[in-house]
């Protein structure tokens, strides 16, 4: 390709770089993310007040319930539509973690239980576990050395 065409392409490439709708996307993420956390808080309060669980147990059970909701909504084919609307509002909460695992398990179902579901379940969520453990190790060690 001659130099003239190359220069034209470079120029137009810069001029046509698309811009994202940051404000409206952030607002949607705020609303949906906040709503998910609100629902979880309501569940925690019910668990503590009506069922008598302590804070730590209530947290664990609430997380389990949120994971369940995330998995089921993924299985029903709805999470991807909500996710497209809410962006980080559904990626950041723990329901997003459940979605990444469930969607991967669902997708690879066609390759069978062992080579499909088992092998690929952590395809997207693996990074979460690995980076979590590595940063826990690094920061934990730093804090330990600084004296607890």
């Amino acid at each position, binding site marked *: 390709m001659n130099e003239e065409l190359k220069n034209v392409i470079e120029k137009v490439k810069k001029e*046509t770089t698309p811009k994202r709708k940051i404000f409206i996307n952030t607002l949607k993420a705020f609303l949906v993310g906040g709503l998910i956390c609100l629902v979880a808080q309501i569940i925690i309060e019910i668990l503590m007040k009506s069922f008598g669980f302590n804070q730590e147990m209530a947290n664990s059970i609430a997380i389990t319930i949120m994971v369940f909701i995330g998995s089921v909504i993924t299985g029903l084919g709805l999470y991807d539509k909500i996710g497209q609307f809410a962006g980080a509002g559904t990626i950041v909460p723990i329901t997003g973690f459940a979605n990444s695992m469930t969607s991967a398990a669902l997708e690879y179902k066609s390759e069978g239980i062992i080579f499909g579901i088992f092998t690929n379940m952590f395809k997207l969520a693996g990074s979460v576990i690995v980076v979590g453990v590595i940063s826990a190790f690094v920061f934990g060690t730093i804090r330990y050395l600084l004296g607890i």
Partner: protein
Amino acid sequence: MKIGKQSLTFHNVFIGEGAVVVGPKENQGPLSDYFDKAYDDLYCGAKTWEKAEMQLFKDAINISLSKNNLAVCDVDCLISGDLNNQIIIGSYTLRDYELPYLGIFGACSTSVEGLIIGGNMIESGSCSKVLVGTSSHNATSERQFRYPTEYGGQKPQTITSTATAAGILLLTNTKGKLCLSGATIGKVIDAKINDPHDLGRAMAPSAFDTIVTHFNDFNSKPNDYDLIVTGDLSYYGKDMLIKLFDEININIKEHYDDCGLLLYNQEKQNVFAGGSGCGCCAAVTYGYLLSKLRDNTYKKILVVATGALLNPIIVAQKETIPGISHAVIIERIDD
């Protein structure tokens, strides 16, 4: 015969009937009357996404043989390709046919790459009937190139929606109303765009290069064609291509459109920046555009299929995304 830098002329290549089979979204679009068969479910009656795409391709082959009044033994060769690893759709579908087969890969430029190769085989006299085809499926493409289909990650507005479609076209040396009169073979063009969510703009430079070369080789200009159509540049790539031509003082706007934008109703259907995939250009060209040539709406068109030559591994290695575009001239012969 070779002319110019990268082009060929054909004098003995005619176009038979095309067959197009699509999925639900395509059937709900503005071109549904031009498709031969449609499924109302992405699984197309099959167990997995890959088998669904094979079903589309198989239907397209059968409908094509029927429409052209051909038995399998009448066909010299079938040329096809798709987006799946190792282009398995063609290979596995053709287990059930006694058909010589050439598998090709041009990403989304496959539909025209096949026409160029098939056209050469007819022109040279070595073959009299060649079937050319391709397929794509939204789910097989998503799971291979992007994310699991139920993943909730947000897609940016520049992304395109892979079409669920298969198309087969007959090339023949038997005289007919439509002919393949020329072709321009594209080069790999890397404009150093590395965003796999913005493939339309990554491919626009290759379409630009191929069309400019085509105009030079054939000594033609946009006015010589009733329509110049690209495969799947998306809304953003189309805009970029128009601006690229503006920079060299050629106005293509009045004669130019994109298959990915023709295939769907941009307002009512959720397809982000437009349609894409091998089946996108095939469905629009082999179904709709040939119809428009036959009913005298168009006389001469230039079809430029555009392909993004990437895979997830190389993109993860921070490589940029090269594109390639192949062009063919399809015209109606009035006697």
